[in-house]
């Protein structure tokens, strides 16, 4: 099996995997970074969202062979101790219910705020429409992104 050199959360990793293995499963099964979640496997739910060169990307659709030399950030690497403004806002607003989708929500929200630091409600709703929350904690996701945005600006 081929070996891939990946850069994840600032650390270099050599991974032996089939070229078509999705980044999601490399993270979860090979590197034990299980914060990135499996939800649908077809890029429809956003639970597996990570940052690839700063952009929110569905890791279930990204083959390991495509991400060499790219900067990959997972929820475990967003901050050292949960101190990213989006994570702080998530705690302050008490967003999670079951919590399963929240890492993906936070990764989408943090990448989005990097491109739009002062979003309107509509901007937030559009930007986050790719992330499903089955508990429907949507009102609080909206509020937490507003809170994070005010912390950032």
């Amino acid at each position, binding site marked *: 099996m081929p070996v891939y050199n990946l850069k994840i959360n600032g650390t270099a990793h050599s991974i032996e995997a089939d070229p078509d293995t999705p980044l999601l499963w490399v993270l979860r099964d090979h590197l034990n970074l299980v*914060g990135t979640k499996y939800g649908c496997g*077809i890029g429809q739910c956003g639970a597996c969202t990570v940052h690839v060169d700063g952009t929110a990307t569905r890791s279930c659709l990204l083959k390991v062979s495509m991400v060499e030399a790219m900067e990959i950030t997972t929820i475990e690497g967003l901050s050292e101790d949960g101190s990213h403004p989006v994570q702080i806002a998530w705690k302050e607003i008490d967003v999670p*219910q079951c919590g*399963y*989708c929240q890492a993906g929500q936070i990764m989408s929200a943090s990448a989005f705020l990097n491109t739009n630091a002062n979003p309107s409600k509509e901007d937030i709703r559009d930007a*986050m429409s790719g*992330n*499903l929350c089955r508990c*429907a904690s949507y*009102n609080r996701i909206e509020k937490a992104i507003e809170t994070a945005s005010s912390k950032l600006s």
Partner: protein
Amino acid sequence: MKSSNNIHLSRRSFIKTSALAGGGMLIGFNLFQACKPEAKPPVDISQLNFNDFNAFIKIADNGMVTIFSPNPEIGQGVKTSMPMLIAEELDISWDNVRVVQGALDTENYTRQVAGGSQSIRLGWEPLRQTGATARQMLINAAAQRWNVDPKNCTTEAGVVKGPDGATLGYGELVKDAAVLEVPEEVTLKKPEDFTIIGKDIVNVDVDKIVTGKPLFGLDYKEDGMLTAVVMRAPSFGLKLKDYDASESKNVTGVVDIIDVKNRIAVLAKDTWTAMKARDLIKANWEEDTEIESTAMHDKKLMDLLNGKDFKTMRADGNVKKAFAEADQVLERVYESPFLPHNCMEPMNFFADVQDEKVRLVGPIQTPERTAQQVATLLERDVKDVSVEMTRMGGGFGRRLYGDFAQEAALISNIVKKPVKVVYTREDDMTAGVYRPAIKYKISASIKDGEITGYHLKEASINSNMYGLIPNFFPAGAIENYQVDVAKYDSNITTGAWRAPYTNFLSFAEQSFFDELAEVLGKDNIALRLELLEKVKGTTDERIQYSPERLQNVIREAVAKSGYGQPKEGVYQGFSSYYCHNTHVAEVADVVMENEVPVVKKVTCVVDCGVVVNPLGAKNQIEGGVLDGIGHAMYGNFTFEKGTPVDKNFNTYHLIRINETPQVETHFIKNDYAPTGLGEPALPPAGAAVANAIKIATGKRLYKQPFVNELKVKAPLG
């Protein structure tokens, strides 16, 4: 609870204490049953035995309190709210409380079930009594040391205060308190003295969730564990004929491929390999039982509804006579599809079946039942089977069923290795235990402008409404009242789905009452209040909804939402409902955008008694309302050739953030014992929206999902 009181229950039967070897005091208690006489809490904190005690409180000699919570967390917040009850009566600062889920390697223990929005209701008294008992023992220890009457001592935030101003921290007292006798009588706080109950407390696992720590079943791993992905019959009604797995066997990383009772399991070293190899199996299936479809179910259910083969669940007066003598009859049929649960965490379970013992780990709401089922399946003594619960990435009823745990056990039993079964989303949606499709026919007889009779008929798949549901509103309000049920037995597996039966019955009933008000030429709110008036003073014990409390939430929802005086361009729909011991009223505000009705806001008024944790409670209400709207609006789930047409989120529509209204929640303030919140906000939501859409568009909705009826493409948000 109207006021504080001395309760003369025997606490000795369910609470026992020990002095910890490393310092501190351990209180073991068994929430819903008595401990065995010989049971003793351990002196070593690593040896917690959840067989005799299903929860523990450790008070360390520095005053820190650790609560080992027995409750599985599906997302309803009980892992936070139940410890709050203990901490309140123990009289400590929440900042000094840590909540821990029971140790992972504990052997042979079982715990209680999470389901039916009952955790807080059942835990309210015993959990507070446990906290109060511990507090009393600390007071007794202090009084002994000071040589004063315990009655003259008080507590505040983890400190016992003596009559002469002397103080001792709990930590300084634990060594003495641990060896005292458990008091028989304790005094609970008055609600006005609460310092934790009623305060906003953030979910105790939030740090772990936002940093992506392993919490869920899918995150669980052990050395040497294999991942199993299973090929199951592609349709309900098919059985395995033969298969060729030669291509799958050649995939690097595949360890084994086995037959498991009509299924084929691929075992691999990692998940992706197992998924990929499973899809390479070429299997042939043959018809075993009838292959069903939605068109067939529609016909069967309609035939049942129009037939005579019913079981009567409640009958008051003489419905037949009332209808025969009526001036007018209103009769309407309401239809709902099957629904999948779609927990965001797909079904999965870990099993390690060995000669000495069977270990199961994963997300399950019913550990005891699952242990029993696995014991039966493997012909093992249930004492050899342990079930450990992880946090659950959603439940909604699906994780009451242990089919996936049994599957994991069967596979591990064959390969004699630790195995984790993982469902793909497609597996999860096609091998479900679905909410059954249901149709209701509701008829009302009208004589001289009054409702004289009410007849509710249910036609459902596999099972019918149960428990007290036939006695919900309007039972007791209408003299001639009857509820009849019938079912069609299908080979498609069905079961509980968040607020079973009421999740759709509420839509049917509350839509019907709005239409009935229209026919009677009455105000829809006045009609509801008037009917509830007739229930007051009822002596019928089957009627457990309170007409006063339901009237109260109705009036409050009208006031808070400005119902009846909407702003220009806003159309409001009303709905009120009682289920899971909680009374709720909701008003939906709808506006027309590009000729499409859009829900902008929902005002929700809830009477759930004392609100233990308002921050968590509101989260449940917001989620329940949006879930109710999402499924009423978009939940389009049909079967063709024995299998669901939609198998993943590319075609199956779950509500998304850009389609959601804002939910405004108000709680009725009172001192009644708290009732559940995981479910009751969901059922009224569909009718509130449908009643608003009727006013906005003139179209009355009888069938879910609404998108099909409104003939508009999603999104409606």
